[in-house]
C-alpha cells in the first residue's frame, strides 16, 4: 500500500507513555516536513486508572481536522482499546501486545474483537520493552519502532526525536529507549516484512508543532499580557501553566486563585490598574464568572476570558469536546449585558485572535469571551504562526488634557467609548461601580441616565465593527449550498466540503472568528446567494444556528452533534450530498 495520509492512535493507560508516543511520532513527522495533527484524549481525570489515547494524523497535504477513522490502532492495553476498534477504517490495522502477563479472557482480548476487514498484528510489546529497558518503560517506543518499519518511515528521524524528547534525561535512558525502538522495528521487519510505503518524497522544511492552548498563551504574551489569574480546570489549565512560567520572566505574574470568581476578579483588578490581563477556564468556571462579566460590562472594565469548552452542562464531560457554551458566552448574565464573543477556528487564529481580543477589549472597555474548545485547545498541529510581538501594545483611549480637566469617567461619546485613566496616572481620580452610574461614575438610578448609559454601552458594539476582520468566504462562489460554522468544527467542515467536491458537489463556507459582533452585511450577502444553508455544530441545541436564525432570518438545515469527539468530516459530507440531491429534485 502507498499512503499519503495516515492516522494512528495509541491507546493505553497511565504509564504506557501514550502522550509521549504522540509527541515522538508527531515530532518526527513534523521534522520531515509533514503536516501533523495530534489529539490526546483522557477518559478520566484520575491519572492512575484512566485510559488515555493519542491520535496522530499526518499527511503530505495540509490538515484541517482529525479526519475519519484510523489506519492503525496501537492497543498498548488490551481491554481498554477494544472500544477504539470501531474507529479503525476498513482495511486498517491494529497492533496488539502478545506478551501480556497472565491469561486474557476472550471477551477482554483486543484481538478477539478484530473483525476481518481489519488486520491485527501481534507485537510482544511488554517483552521487548523489558528486554530493552529492564522495565515496562519503553513500551511506547517498541510500538513506534514497529510503526516506523510498518510505514517505511525514516528511522533516523525517530531516533533524533527520541533524543530531543528525552533530552533532559541521562544518556543511558536515551540509549535504552532507542534500543526499545530498534527492537520494535526489527520485530516487524522480521515478522511482517511486507511493509507499506508512505510518500515522503515531498519532504520539506521541518514544521513547528503547537496546540491551540499554546498559541493562545503565546499570542497573549506577545501582545503584552502582564497578569494572569486562574483556577485549574481541564482543558484550560495549560494556558495558565504557560503564563505561570513565562510572565515572571517578563516582569509580570500569574496567580492561582481560590476559585474562578476570584480569578476573574483579579483580572478585572489588573485591568483596572491598566495592565493587560486574562484568565482561562472552561464551562463550570465560566458559569461562576457571570456576575463578574456583568461587572465588567457595567463598569466598562476590559477583561479577557478564554473559555476552552468541554462537554456540559455542569461538571459534564471534562475530557470531551463540545461547543455548548456559546449561549452562556453570548447571553449569560443579568440585564442587558453586551460582550464580545470570539471563536478561533484553528491554532493560527488562536494566536492572532487573542491579540485582536486584547486590542478590542482594551479599546472598547468590554469583556471579550474567547471560545476555544477542548479539541482545538489540546490538539497539537503543524502550523505557520505569523509572530507579532509588541509587549507594550496599548489600545486604551486616554483622556485629552481638556477631558482631564473635568474628568468624566463615563463621558458620553459618539462611539460610546469614554476616556480612561488608570491608578498611578496624574490628573484625575475616579471611582467605578457595578451600580448604574452617571457620567462621573457616581451611583445613579434615574430612568434617563440608565437608558443613556445602556445605549452608550451598546453603541460601542456598533463602532467596534470597523476594527473587526471581515468574514472569510471559502469554497466555490457559485455554489448553491452554503455552510456556516464556527470554532474548531470549521476544520471538519472544510474536509467535508473537500469530500463532497470529489463527488462533484460544490459548496461554499462562511466563517468568522467574530461571533458577536459580526460584519453582518457579508453574512447577509452570503446567505442571499445560497439556495440551501447548512449549519453544523457540536451541541444539541444548535446554538449558533439559533443566533444566525434570529439575526439573519434564515432557515438553515442544522446539524447538531452533541459531541464527545471532533466532528467527522464524512458526516458533514453526507449532509452536503443529501442536500444536493434534494436540490436537484
Amino acid at each position, binding site marked *: 500500500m502507498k499512503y499519503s495520509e495516515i492516522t494512528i492512535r495509541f491507546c493505553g493507560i497511565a504509564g504506557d507513555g501514550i502522550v509521549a508516543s504522540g509527541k515522538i511520532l508527531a515530532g518526527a513527522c513534523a521534522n520531515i516536513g509533514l503536516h501533523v495533527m495530534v489529539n490526546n484524549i483522557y477518559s478520566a481525570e484520575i491519572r492512575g486508572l484512566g485510559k488515555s489515547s493519542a491520535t496522530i494524523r499526518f499527511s503530505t497535504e495540509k490538515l484541517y481536522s482529525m479526519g475519519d477513522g484510523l489506519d492503525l490502532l496501537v492497543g498498548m492495553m488490551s481491554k481498554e482499546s477494544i472500544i477504539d476498534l470501531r474507529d479503525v477504517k476498513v482495511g486498517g490495522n491494529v497492533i496488539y501486545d502478545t506478551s501480556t502477563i497472565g491469561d486474557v479472557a476472550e471477551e477482554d482480548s483486543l484481538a478477539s474483537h478484530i473483525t476481518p476487514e481489519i488486520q491485527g498484528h501481534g507485537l510482544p510489546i511488554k517483552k521487548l520493552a523489558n528486554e530493552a529497558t529492564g522495565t515496562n518503560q519503553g513500551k511506547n517506543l517498541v510500538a513506534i519502532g514497529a510503526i516506523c518499519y510498518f510505514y517505511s518511515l525514516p528511522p533516523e528521524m525517530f531516533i533524533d526525536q527520541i533524543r530531543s524528547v528525552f533530552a533532559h534525561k541521562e544518556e543511558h535512558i536515551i540509549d535504552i529507549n532507542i534500543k526499545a525502538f530498534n527492537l520494535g522495528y526489527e520485530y516487524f521487519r522480521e515478522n511482517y516484512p511486507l511493509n507499506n510505503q508512505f510518500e515522503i518524497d515531498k519532504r520539506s522544511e521541518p514544521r513547528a508543532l503547537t496546540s491551540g492552548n499554546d498559541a493562545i498563551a503565546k499570542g497573549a504574551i506577545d501582545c503584552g499580557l502582564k497578569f494572569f489569574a486562574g483556577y485549574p480546570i481541564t482543558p484550560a489549565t495549560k494556558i495558565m501553566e504557560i503564563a505561570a512560567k513565562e510572565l515572571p520572566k517578563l516582569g509580570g505574574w500569574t496567580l492561582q486563585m481560590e476559585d474562578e470568581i476570584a480569578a476573574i476578579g483579579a483580572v478585572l483588578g489588573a*485591568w483596572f490598574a491598566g495592565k493587560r490581563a486574562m484568565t482561562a477556564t472552561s464551562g463550570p468556571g465560566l458559569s461562576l464568572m457571570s456576575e463578574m462579566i456583568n461587572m465588567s460590562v457595567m463598569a466598562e472594565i476590559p477583561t479577557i476570558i478564554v473559555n476552552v469548552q468541554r462537554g456540559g452542562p455542569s461538571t459534564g464531560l471534562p475530557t470531551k469536546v463540545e461547543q455548548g457554551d456559546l449561549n452562556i458566552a453570548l447571553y449569560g448574565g443579568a440585564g442587558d449585558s453586551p460582550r464580545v464573543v470570539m471563536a478561533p477556528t484553528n491554532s493560527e487564529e488562536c494566536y492572532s485572535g487573542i491579540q485582536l481580543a486584547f486590542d478590542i477589549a482594551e479599546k472598547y472597555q468590554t469583556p471579550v469571551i474567547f471560545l476555544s474548545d477542548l479539541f482545538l485547545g489540546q490538539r497539537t498541529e503543524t502550523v505557520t504562526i505569523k509572530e507579532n510581538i509588541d509587549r507594550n501594545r496599548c489600545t486604551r483611549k486616554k483622556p485629552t488634557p481638556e477631558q482631564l480637566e473635568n474628568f468624566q469617567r463615563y463621558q458620553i461619546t459618539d462611539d460610546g467609548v469614554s476616556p480612561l485613566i488608570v491608578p498611578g496616572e496624574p490628573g484625575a481620580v475616579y471611582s467605578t461601580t457595578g451600580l448604574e452610574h452617571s457620567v462621573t461614575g457616581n*451611583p445613579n438610578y434615574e430612568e434617563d441616565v440608565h437608558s443613556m448609559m445602556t445605549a452608550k454601552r451598546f453603541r460601542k458594539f456598533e463602532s467596534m465593527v470597523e476594527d473587526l476582520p471581515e468574514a472569510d468566504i471559502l469554497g466555490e462562489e457559485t455554489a448553491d449550498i452554503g455552510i456556516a460554522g464556527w470554532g474548531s468544527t470549521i476544520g471538519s467542515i472544510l474536509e467535508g466540503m473537500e469530500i463532497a467536491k470529489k463527488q462533484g458537489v460544490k459548496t461554499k463556507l462562511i466563517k468568522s472568528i467574530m461571533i458577536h459582533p459580526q460584519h453582518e452585511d457579508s453574512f447577509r450577502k452570503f446567505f442571499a446567494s445560497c439556495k440551501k444553508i447548512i449549519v453544523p455544530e457540536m451541541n444539541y441545541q444548535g446554538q449558533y444556528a439559533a443566533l444566525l436564525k434570529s439575526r439573519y432570518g434564515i432557515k438553515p438545515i442544522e446539524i447538531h452533534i452533541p459531541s464527545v469527539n471532533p466532528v467527522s468530516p464524512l458526516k458533514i459530507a453526507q449532509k452536503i450530498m443529501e442536500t444536493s440531491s434534494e436540490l436537484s429534485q
Partner: protein
Amino acid sequence: MSFLSKQTVLDEFKKAKESKTKEWRDNLPTWCPGCGHFTGLHGLYEAAERLNIPPKDFVVVSGIGCSGRFPFFIKGFGLHGLHGRAIPIATGIKVASPDLTVVVVGGDGDGVGIGGGHFPHAARSNFNLTYILLDNSIYGLTKGQISPTSPMGMKSGTSPYGNIARPLNPTTLALAYGATFVARTFSRERDMVSELITKAIQHKGFSFIHDLSPCVVFNKVVTYDSVNDASAMLPEGHDILDRSKAMTLAESTEPIYQGLFFREEVPSFDDHAKQVRDGLKD
C-alpha cells in the same frame, strides 16, 4: 477616648470639608446618622493624611453593603465591586501595580459570608493589602438579616425564631489564616481606629482590621452599648509576636479585647515575587 452621639458624626463630616483631610474627602457619606461605618471612613481619611498617600496612588476597593460605599466618599481611585469579591479584585490591582496603596473595605456578610472563601487566601499569600472589615453583625444594606457574625438566638426577618448557628469571629479567623497584622477596633474609639488603620497601611503584608461597627438601625442586639459594655483594651504587655496567645485573647467574648493582637514582619507577596523575578534574570 472620644464618645460621639449618633448625629454628631454626620454633622462633623458635613463641616469637615475644610479639615486637614479635605484632600481625600469626596461625596458626603449616605449612611444613617450614627452608623458605625463613619468611624472607619474617618480613620481612613486620617491615615491617608498622616501617610500622605497621593490620591492618584490610592485605591479603595469595596464589596457590596452599606460598608461597600466607601470608595465614593474618598478621593482616590475607587472600585465598588461585587458582593464578597473585593479581595480578589484588590489582589489583581496590587499584583499588577505593586506601587499603589490598596485598601479593601467590606462588611461582615461580604467578608466572611459570601466572600468567606477569599479571605484565607489573601491572608496566607500575604498580599500587601489592608483589609478593613466593618462588622455590624447584620446585613445592613438589605435591611437587617442575620449575618455570619450575628449572635445565636438573634431574631431577624430571615430568622424569625432566632439564629440557630454560632457566630464566626473574624479576628480569630484572620489569625488562623496567617494574616501578618491583626487588630480589632470599635467604632466608638475614633483615635484607636485611625491609629490602627494607619499602622495597618504601613505594614508590609496582609493587614487586617476587624472594626466593630454597629448598625444603629437594624441591629438591636449588637449595639454601641452592648459592645461598649463588653469592651476592654488588650492587656498591657501583650506580646504581639505570639500568635496563639493572640488567638486566646481574640476568642474571648467577655471581655471583647481591642487593640493590636498580632504583627510579624515576614516577606510579603511582593518580596517573594520580586525574588522570583530577580532569580530569573540571570
